[in-house]
């Protein structure tokens, strides 16, 4: 008997809210994404339309916005499992849309309990909104080997300057969450009108995330800046969202491979009954299950009363592992499907490009050094 590919989350991570939302996202995917997925890279309006429906009609954009402002007002206690389930479902449909949402959600969560949150809540309630994360850039070495945007206090305001490439959506974001060197490491929220954009860059995947280089030259209120460990919270939630997104992507690769393998025979018997092919298939599902296990563990850790630093460090491990798994699932599935996996119409190659893009954007070479610093006390910076 064939087991189902889906593997439910452990019981303590299930919640009615999470399941209800996951169901809505599943229906959204079936209607807005899956029928058009082969064209999504060429017809940008498909991703735009689907993203808008997910952000506004389903309300993912306002997940943490208070109910009084028209949001869902999901609390910290419910957030991790809601994000886990939601992003799993989005990952099965389109990782690019999920990537843009990951940035928005992690930036909004990192501001909860501050004046920035009020500003963001108003923006997120007013209509479609995208938030681009402007992380530390290649350049000088003022933050863990990277360069932060420069922030200088002038009276009640802060002058902000920076140049580089956002993680996502630089070309069409409404707000930029800019990592800057104000009072240590801070995150400043800048309206798009203070940002000069280059031409849109062409990328490997994640087509919903329209990116470009940006020049930031802004003067903002001090109330628009998050200090302390807020940046760490932002990355922790971003890592959770991306981990879950990658779980969904890995499962979708499994599904695509399973559907294809069912019809495929080789040497007179089903392909999946040949041991060499069965071993590859097994590795594809193994990657998905491993990613699922790690993403769930991160979710559970985030629900416990733990040291923020510890949670952040584990979130890095989870994002690295899950993005590895999403890529490996697609890559090994393609190994069997060959030209049919490589062709756009097969849908696998989109997961393959998107998963690789997420992994590359995580900057694994740097994250490994961070882990060495976190767990072994390496003095690298």
């Amino acid at each position, binding site marked *: 008997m064939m087991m189902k590919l889906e593997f439910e989350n452990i019981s303590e991570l299930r919640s009615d809210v999470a399941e209800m939302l996951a169901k809505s996202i599943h229906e959204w995917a079936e209607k807005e994404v899956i029928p058009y997925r082969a064209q999504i890279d060429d017809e940008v309006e498909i991703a735009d339309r689907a993203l808008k429906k997910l952000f506004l009609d389903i309300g993912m954009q306002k997940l943490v916005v208070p109910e009084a402002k028209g949001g869902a007002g999901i609390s910290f206690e419910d957030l991790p499992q809601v994000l886990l389930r939601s992003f799993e479902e989005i990952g099965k449909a389109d990782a690019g849309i999920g990537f843009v949402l990951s940035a928005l959600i992690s930036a909004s969560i990192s501001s909860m309990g501050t004046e920035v949150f009020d500003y963001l809540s108003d923006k997120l309630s007013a209509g479609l909104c995208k938030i681009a994360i402007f992380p530390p850039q290649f350049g000088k*070495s003022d933050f863990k080997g990277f360069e932060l945007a420069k922030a200088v206090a002038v009276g009640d305001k802060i002058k902000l300057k920076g140049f580089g490439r956002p993680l996502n959506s630089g070309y069409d974001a409404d707000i930029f969450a800019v990592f800057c060197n104000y009072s240590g490491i801070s995150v400043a929220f800048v309206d798009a009108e203070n940002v000069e954009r280059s031409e849109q860059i062409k990328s490997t995947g994640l087509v919903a995330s329209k990116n470009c280089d940006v020049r930031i030259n802004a003067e903002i209120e001090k109330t628009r800046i998050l200090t302390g460990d807020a940046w760490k919270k932002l990355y922790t939630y971003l890592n959770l969202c991306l981990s879950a997104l990658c779980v969904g992507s890995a499962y979708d690769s499994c599904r695509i491979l399973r559907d294809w393998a069912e019809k495929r025979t080789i040497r007179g018997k089903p392909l999946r009954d040949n041991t060499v092919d069965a071993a590859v298939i097994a590795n594809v599902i193994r990657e998905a299950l491993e990613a699922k296990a790690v993403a769930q563990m991160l979710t559970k850790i985030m629900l416990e009363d733990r040291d923020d630093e510890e949670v952040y460090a584990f979130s890095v491990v989870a994002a690295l592992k899950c993005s590895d798994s999403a890529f490996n699932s697609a890559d090994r599935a393609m190994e069997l499907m060959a030209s049919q996996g490589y062709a756009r119409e097969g849908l696998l190659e989109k997961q393959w490009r998107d998963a690789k893009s997420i992994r590359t954007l995580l900057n694994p070479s740097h994250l*490994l050094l961070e882990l060495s610093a976190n767990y072994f006390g390496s003095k690298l910076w």
Partner: protein
Amino acid sequence: MEFARIREFESPLERYMAEIIRDWGEKYVIPHRRNFDEDWKEHRTIEPALEKLMVDYGIQTAVWPEEFGGWGLGSSDYFGSICARVMEEIGRYDTGIAVSVGVTLWPIFVIAVKPHINYDLCAEFAPLFMRKKLTMAANAMTEPQGGSDIENLDELKGKTIRTTAKLDGDEWVINGHKLWPTNSGGVADLFGVVCTTNPGVPDEKNFAYIYVPADLPGVKQGEPYRKAGMAADKNSDIWFENVRVPKRYRAWGEGLDAKYFRIIISTGCLGSAGMALGAMENIYEILFEKCSELRYRGRPLKENTAVAAVLADIAAEIEICRSAVYTYARMLDRPDYYGDRFSAEMIARGRALKLKVCDACCRVAERAMDLLGHYGIDRNYDVEKHWRDVKIIQLWMGGRQLCQMDVARYFYDCKQL
């Protein structure tokens, strides 16, 4: 910086061809390469580059014997080395163009490479390639159901081939459906078609390799597929419906077709490894430049030990792969030492080479992207294009699994795989 090139293996013609390909690549590929992906269907920028190389630089005539106007590469004692070099140099610029060129030469190998030169068929088809007009060929091999089983001759002996060739008087009547040949989708002027004369019967005598001009009645080609990469390589379905060709268009005849067809496997493995090697070298060149420019931890990216370690791994892969590619190429050049190019031994060695070099190439491209962070996925940095393109090199010709089985069968004397 130059990776290992064994000078004793290098022929004067190979060096000359490398020079002209570099000249061509810099002038006709690099200025347009970043737009190739958008040009996958129309080939508005790709075709002029191909035409320049094939017609003006003369590559389409290279394999044919000199008496028919060709360069006589098929009779050269450096046949393998030159093929590898041509694929490496073109692959440095674009592996899609490399495969398009390689596959044009491929079907010709069966009839124009010593010791099996079919002068009658050379006289028939060489003039097509001597025209001052872009002329391409394709190898119609893979089928919808059997996939790459067709290449698995030693085990299946053509049992799974469904494209049939029936003799009707002095003509072969061909019926069947082929999938995904390079240079299909309206590109090729001539197909080498793998057929069976007795479907379902595992006997190499039934294996027929028949040349089919693309403009004959009954040859139908589908629209090209959209793919992850390899824009310069058009692929589509091809249907042969009661296509009639003269009896003499069969390459050699019973038993010999299967025998000499195997040169397609050994040279296909060599060509794949050669173009993958070229792609790796270009990735190295890009990394050299970008890792010198981008700064991390206060110094150029390449001056950080963690990054340098990855760069070293990449250089080591290229260094070893180049040695392996040219060692195998030279072995193909010396059948007196190493056996025929179509022998099981040389095919197994070729499969091992393809398996190893293609894996290395995919890994190099992946790691290069990771090193560059968000520039790794930027199409202006070119590394990601190589990453998308080279994946299919690993997958074609039966992919990793068929390579593994051929290697295991030969090196471990497996009888029941």
